[in-house]
């Protein structure tokens, strides 16, 4: 096996998260791939259709993986339609994950937009499992509508572990008792000492730019502000260049990049 050869995994289970998003539980048919760290990604291969990068959203059993996939194209659609028993190809783990664990005593802020909660879920779970190490842990979640919120069943588990979980949606109908607006509006929930804060952010790139900018204005150090970036990952090992962002090859140097390095690149028109 090489990093270019897919390992066979079987779909052991699937859960519909939203109207177009599914979490697949994969278990290895061959020797399991090396353990994925939170924030790393795999190349998932729907045989006969195509291969796409998908972040790991959790562990499944001893050597298995959880991937949350949104149906937006031919390959992601095929993955979302995969029923238990389907064999998929998996390559990985690729890239740099979240800078975990955060230093003891730190304030931890996790900001997710839309599907961005998927790669952050392992980080949330890790922070919740070691809650006593940190001063404050807050998770801020933005989504398009209440129906698009990911993992709502886990939010109360995280709260029970002492994590502040706050949600906001772009628009809501009758019956929504939560907040409406942009995710940065939830910053009024933060009880942090900015200089001692580590932040993890994932979502649409424009959203991450605004979140990172506002956290930096609050005083969170740029080098402690981590973003998960996305480009057209293809080979996964920094050879093909499809995922280049300025000096970075995101499949190798990312997808998680600190804001001090990523910030200038995100506002460069040619990139």
């Amino acid at each position, binding site marked *: 096996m090489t990093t270019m050869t897919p390992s066979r995994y079987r779909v052991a289970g699937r859960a519909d998260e939203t109207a177009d998003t599914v979490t697949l539980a994969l278990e290895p048919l061959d020797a399991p791939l090396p353990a994925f760290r939170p924030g790393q990604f795999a190349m998932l291969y729907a045989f006969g259709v195509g291969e796409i990068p998908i972040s790991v959203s959790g562990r499944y059993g001893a050597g298995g993986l959880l991937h949350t996939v*949104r149906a937006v194209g031919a390959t992601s659609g095929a993955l979302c339609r995969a029923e238990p028993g389907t064999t998929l190809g998996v390559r990985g783990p690729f890239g740099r994950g979240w800078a975990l664990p955060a230093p003891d005593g730190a304030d931890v802020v996790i900001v997710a937009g839309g599907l961005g909660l998927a790669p952050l879920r392992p980080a949330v779970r890790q922070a919740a499992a070691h809650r006593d190490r940190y001063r404050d842990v807050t998770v801020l979640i933005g989504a*398009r509508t209440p129906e698009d919120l990911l993992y709502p069943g886990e939010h109360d588990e995280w709260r029970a572990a002492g994590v502040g979980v706050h949600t906001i949606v772009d628009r809501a*109908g009758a019956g929504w008792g939560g907040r*409406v*607006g942009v995710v*940065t509006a*939830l910053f*009024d929930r933060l009880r942090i000492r900015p200089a001692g804060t580590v932040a993890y952010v994932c979502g649409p790139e424009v959203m991450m730019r*605004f979140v990172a900018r506002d956290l930096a204005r609050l005083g969170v150090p740029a080098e402690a502000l981590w973003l998960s970036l996305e480009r057209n990952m293809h080979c996964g090992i920094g050879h093909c260049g499809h995922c280049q962002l300025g000096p970075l090859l995101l499949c190798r140097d990312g997808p998680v990049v600190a804001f001090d390095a990523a910030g200038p690149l995100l506002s460069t028109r040619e990139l």
Partner: protein
Amino acid sequence: MSTTRELLEAHPFLAGLTAGDIGRLEPLARPEPFPAGTRIFEENGPAERFWLIGDGQVDLDIRVPGRGDVIMETLGPGTVLGWSWLFPPYRWHFGAVAAGPVRSIAVDGTAVRALCDADPVFGYELTRRFMAVVVGRMQATRLRLLDLYRAPA
């Protein structure tokens, strides 16, 4: 129990105002709690005051035929509710309802306008703060217009 002055001094919207300026607002302000579900004002109603939200959340909404009251934005603690009192025609652009129990300080907008007219330096400072609120909400609206969480085409 905090006094009105202490509440004004503690509110982020007024942070950095001089003691003298806080003192001028104090007689125009009073604590005003709202039970959950209270309609604070109606769209197009006369805009005569503003509220400094101390605790709780307020939904800004608009009545859409066939869809009822649609929430456009939620304001949280530390923010200010209402700027229509500052600009003609002094009518609310949207409605507002307490999303839960709300602690606030109500301030007489008509009297504050008179204060601003009489003291342009104070008026400029206060208008600058309200402009920042308006700009912040406009930027947030622009971001939401991008519909960033929509599935890519």
